[in-house]
């Protein structure tokens, strides 16, 4: 290449190219601007702020000790209901999300129109909060667990569908080609080519979403969709803070238990 003695042009070392640096700078600037704008214009009432520490102490004093007697009366049944809502909702979401995920995966569905339509469905499902879905379903099906199950399901479709679509797109093409070469039908290709490859991700996603859904289901009752949220809403409306405390503690315990269970399952199976 170069002969000894020929001068080299000075080579500078930069971590990022000029374009990258500009982009990063733009992001920093944009973030700073956004934060300043938000802080200036968001309405915060100072009187409430001064009050806050006292209010907080007052709150905790009213919550403790918990009203343990309330548990067998109202809380236990509601807790079971919450569990069912979360589980049925997750299962329903898996069933509904599977076809949408197939439509959204660019290696399975070659039509751009189909991909876009499926992506739109998934984004919409995710954008609408489960609480808002619950409002809609309560309006249609009336208050109760049915609205809750549907709310959980419809919210989860976006989450599950997106992750499944990503898993499908990451499937290795080699085995798929080999199966195509044997003359397999598209259905057989899905069952024997794609499914074995995405199966571990499928269960991981299901477990992950179920964990989140337990938390989500607990609050749906605030708008009437069944579960322990109903008990919470009642306690809040009546200002029975000791019951509120109990319910929050129970929710916390359930969340911890579910987390332990899902970690254990994940370690064993995945």
């Amino acid at each position, binding site marked *: 290449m170069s002969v000894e003695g020929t001068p080299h042009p000075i080579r500078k070392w930069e971590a990022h190219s000029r374009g990258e640096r500009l982009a990063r700078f733009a992001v920093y600037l944009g973030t700073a601007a956004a934060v300043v704008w938000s802080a200036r214009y968001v309405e915060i009432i100072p009187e409430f702020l001064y009050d806050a520490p006292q209010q907080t102490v007052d709150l905790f004093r009213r919550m403790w000790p918990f009203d343990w007697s309330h548990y067998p009366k109202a809380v236990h049944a509601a807790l079971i209901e919450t569990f069912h809502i979360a589980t049925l909702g997750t299962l329903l979401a898996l069933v509904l999300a599977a076809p949408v995920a197939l439509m959204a995966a660019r290696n399975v569905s070659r039509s751009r129109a189909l991909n876009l339509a499926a992506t739109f469905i998934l984004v919409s499902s995710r954008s609408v909060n489960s609480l808002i879905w619950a409002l809609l379903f309560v309006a249609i099906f009336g208050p109760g667990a049915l609205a809750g199950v549907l709310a959980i399901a419809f919210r989860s479709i976006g989450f599950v569908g997106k992750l499944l679509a990503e898993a499908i797109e990451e499937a290795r093409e080699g085995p798929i*080609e*080999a199966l195509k070469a*044997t003359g*397999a039908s598209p259905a*057989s290709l899905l069952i024997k080519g794609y499914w*074995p*490859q995405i199966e*571990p991700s499928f269960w991981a996603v299901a477990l992950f979403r179920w964990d989140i859904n337990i938390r989500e289901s607990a609050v749906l009752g605030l708008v009437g969709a069944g579960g322990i949220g109903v008990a919470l809403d009642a306690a809040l409306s009546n200002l029975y803070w000791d019951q509120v405390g109990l319910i929050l503690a129970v929710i916390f315990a359930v969340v911890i238990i579910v987390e332990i269970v899902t970690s254990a399952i994940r370690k064993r199976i995945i």
Partner: protein
Amino acid sequence: MTAANENSALELRALSKSYVPGKPVLRDISLTIPANGITAIIGPSGTGKSTLVRCINRLVTPTSGAILFKGLDLTQLSGKALRMARRRIGMVHQEYNLVERLSVMENVLTGRLGYVPAWRAFLRRFPQADIDRAFGLLDAVGLADFATRRADQLSGGQRQRVGIARALMQDPELLLADEPTSSLDPKTSVEIVELMQKLAAERGIPVIINIHDVELGKRFANRVIGMSQGTVVFDGLPENLTDRDLATIYGGESWIAAA
């Protein structure tokens, strides 16, 4: 249109393929593949060998030309007709392409996917005859005890044997092999090609093998086709392949070992 010769399995007519318009990978290839024995295709990387083989079972669609297989023009088929043609052509792949998480037996049985409906595949209710044949093929490739092992627990050579069993499970009339030995060590490579030769001969199936190891090709092939830059530059018996021919195919003399 002349009918396919009794002694030819496959006829390629003016086959061309360009992935990028204006840059043809295959240029106007016309060939007749004999109806028995092994035909080896040799040539440098990127010369279109793999494209050629994959055009035959339409994993790649040619830009122009015809591929006549027992009277059928494969380039004109689509949908169900294409699938029915594909099941008559078995393929052994470079990277084995097994479904890693399925067992060896399930992988072999995927060779029947062109023949059984999807619901049977899903419930694994293959006909008993297929199951018996699958076991027979596993015996033939020397993997009798591996039927229930997961495919990802096997070595490279073992996986390729499963690949061969899968291809033969289709009861094919033609066997394609796309660089079946490039991921294998020299000893295993010989075993694999030998196995293909034996099993194909037993069943009277012609084999087209795309291979980069020239010596291996010469040793087992009945016919050698040399490609260079998208065209056929040698077509004849392996013993007639001279160093001059190799130089034409691969370019440059330094790699040809002194005899």
